[in-house]
């Protein structure tokens, strides 16, 4: 450990006790305020588990049924609580099973600390039983990682891990601890990390840029805000609302930005991107100033970069300097934490109205409503649509439930139609698009916010990728509501096959098991509906059930998600059918 950690003496604990490395791991986690962690034991992490047994009144370990489930649960916990999620696994296959969740957390900027056991340090590099180079494997998908071979390193490394995971643009960190370091005794004391030489989590805001951004916004005739998760991660919801209300800025969101302001807010003009709303996508190529806040111009948002908002001046509020000009060339970059930069710009903004410009969004919304939304939410054909299931959940939950969605058609439908009236309500795998995310993430989300209703929405494909976590739900009794929208297809792939591969449905049709029987096998109340007249009561029963509940809804087999921007097309070439 050569990296210099800056220590803040006020937070230091002077008390020193002689304990093992594994006890130090548990005491360090407690010192960081960890009350729950998700994991799976095994040979190389057993000493730590033995200590967890001792400390079970202070720290709750949740045994998931697969290590991937542990990482997604930790992500769900982190996303809803704003705290660091923690996952633990043994060496070798235990560690490699964490990788999908770590990669997901990295691309979605989720604070997570993963702890893995490792073979004894004398065996490192010898291809020992259950040895993998997890530090090497996880390097491209972690914000930071480190291997510990001496017990005395443990407190400092764990303190650094939490500081790095949470500060600046958050991300996952992995700590690998050899078994001998877990057994070794040393004099333990814990100091929280408050700074690291070489690491500056929040860049300084340049006042000139801030003023230039304010001038552009004040002079804009057709401004458009696109906000991302940076608003939520920066806890800047109130500041963001104040800014857009003062300058009357129509504001659209990326998938991870959803819920920062309520769906019903009059300035909320919907989602951008591949399956986003018609108006903000089309008008991206008409606005004169595009104000990006805490978002990273993902290709799913921009479509063809060569035609993306070419007419607009672009302002980018961003905490990560590497995002500036990465995909879209900006005219003004405002670096810093969104809470601080939005607070700072507010006094410079003029009150405005942009009435005609707002009307354009309303007009295009009406076009989308007539062509798409009406059919999705008020269908006239027999088969159930995914949209009407969401509409029913909105009504029963009063739009206050946290929606944890998996990946596929249902995810886009959930994002489009769920009412998000409370911040941190849209928990989904954005950047990596990880099927199997939702079920374990819902477990973590419910534990991270027990007071909230947590409704998981999955397709029949993704649900089966981590279906074993029903066992975790059964054992912990965590009252998540599980909704599977079953169309017996890998629906999104099927949609692409229909539109771009001449309806050649290669390996996308699924023959599914009796999902209700499986849920009941785990002692979870369950029901399946396929008729419109049964839907409302079934959703009501689910929401009113105190414990966990499984609801399968048989939906239209070959429904498509529109609007849609085909890959490589311009955002303004959005298809409505």
């Amino acid at each position, binding site marked *: *450990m*050569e*990296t*210099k950690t*800056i220590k803040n003496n006020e937070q230091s604990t002077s008390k020193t006790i002689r304990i093992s490395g594994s006890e130090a791991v548990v005491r360090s986690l407690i010192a960081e305020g960890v009350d729950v962690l998700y994991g799976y034991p095994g040979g190389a992490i057993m000493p730590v588990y033995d200590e967890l047994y001792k400390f079970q009144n202070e720290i709750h370990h949740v045994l998931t049924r697969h290590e991937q489930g542990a990482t997604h649960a930790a992500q769900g916990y982190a996303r809803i609580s704003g705290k660091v999620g923690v996952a633990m696994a043994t060496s070798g296959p235990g560690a490699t099973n964490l990788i999908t969740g770590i990669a997901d957390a990295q691309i979605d900027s989720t604070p997570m600390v993963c702890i893995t056991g490792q073979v004894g340090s004398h065996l490192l590099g010898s291809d020992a039983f259950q040895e993998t180079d997890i*530090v*090497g494997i996880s*390097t*491209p998908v972690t*914000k*930071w*990682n*480190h*291997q510990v071979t001496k017990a005395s390193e443990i407190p400092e490394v764990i303190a650094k891990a939490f500081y*790095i995971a949470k500060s600046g643009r958050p991300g996952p960190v992995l700590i690998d601890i050899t078994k001998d370091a877990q057994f070794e005794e040393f004099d333990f004391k814990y100091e929280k990390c408050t*700074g*690291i*030489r*070489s*690491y*500056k989590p929040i860049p300084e805001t340049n006042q000139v840029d801030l003023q230039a951004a304010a001038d552009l916004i004040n002079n804009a005739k057709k401004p458009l805000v696109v906000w991302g998760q940076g608003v939520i991660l920066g806890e800047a919801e109130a500041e963001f609302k104040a800014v857009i209300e003062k300058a009357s800025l129509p504001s659209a969101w990326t998938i991870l930005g959803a819920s920062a302001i309520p769906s019903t807010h009059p300035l909320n003009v919907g989602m951008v991107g591949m399956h986003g709303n018609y108006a903000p996508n089309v008008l991206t190529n008409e606005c004169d100033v595009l104000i990006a806040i805490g978002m990273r111009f993902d290709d799913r948002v921009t479509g063809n970069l060569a035609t993306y908002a070419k007419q607009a001046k672009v302002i980018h509020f961003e905490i*990560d*300097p*590497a*995002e*500036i*000009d*990465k995909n879209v060339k900006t005219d003004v970059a405002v670096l810093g934490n969104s809470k601080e930069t939005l607070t700072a710009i507010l006094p410079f903004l003029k009150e405005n109205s942009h009435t005609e410009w707002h009307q354009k969004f309303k007009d295009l919304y009406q076009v989308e409503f007539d062509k798409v939304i009406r059919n999705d939410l008020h269908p006239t054909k027999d088969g159930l649509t995914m949209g009407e299931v969401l509409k029913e959940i909105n009504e029963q939950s009063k739009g206050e439930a946290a929606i944890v969605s998996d990946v596929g058609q249902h995810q886009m439908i959930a994002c489009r139609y769920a009412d998000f009236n409370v911040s941190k309500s849209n928990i989904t795998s954005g950047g990596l698009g990880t099927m199997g995310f939702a079920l374990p993430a819902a477990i973590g989300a419910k534990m991270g916010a027990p007071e909230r209703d947590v409704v998981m929405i999955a397709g029949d494909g993704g649900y089966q990728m981590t279906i074993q976590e029903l066992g975790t739900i059964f054992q912990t009794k965590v009252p998540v509501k599980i909704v599977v929208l079953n169309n017996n297809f890998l629906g999104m792939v099927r949609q692409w096959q229909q539109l771009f591969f001449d309806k050649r449905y290669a390996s996308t049709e699924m023959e599914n098991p009796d999902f209700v029987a499986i849920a009941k096998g785990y002692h979870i109340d369950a029901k399946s509906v396929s008729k419109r007249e049964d839907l409302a009561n079934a959703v009501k029963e689910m929401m009113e059930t105190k414990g966990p509940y499984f609801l399968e809804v048989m939906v239209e087999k070959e429904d498509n998600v529109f609007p849609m921007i085909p890959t490589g097309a311009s955002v303004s070439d959005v298809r409505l059918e």
Partner: protein
Amino acid sequence: MSENKLYTVSIYTENNIGLLNRISAIFQRRHINIESINSSASEIENVSKWTIVVKLTEDQMKKIIGQIEKQVEVIKAYYHTEEEIIYQESCLFKIKSDLLFEERQIQNIIKESNARIVTVNKAFFVLEKSGRRSEIELLHRELSAFGILQFTRSGRIAVTKTPMEITKMLEAFQH
């Protein structure tokens, strides 16, 4: 589209295990081949300096510098054009000793190239040459005619013509 150019990257870092993996992965992901790489002590105690030579567009270079600076242990990364730096490479030639005595021309080559004889024994002698890539390549061509037993060349090392105020920057990090 700007054209590919040779850039020299200077990275000041903490001296940590595993950082090579992180830095090289940034180039690997973008399919950019590293021409040469060198890691050594720097003018500051406990701070390493990396010198990496790559061929790419300036736009790519800027984005990569951003990604490198994102790494927790990286203090600062810069990129320079050929004109902005003083740089050298070093190489070793192992050649049969007989040639040193029998081929007068070899003695002339050694003299004119400012190469240095590191060691001589009965079987072979070793020449060391530091300089620009073109000088080393010229020497290699000239000696090839007589036969080279072994040849190796280092990565580029470079210093900039303008100051790099890393010490000041490190102080700023701590406030």
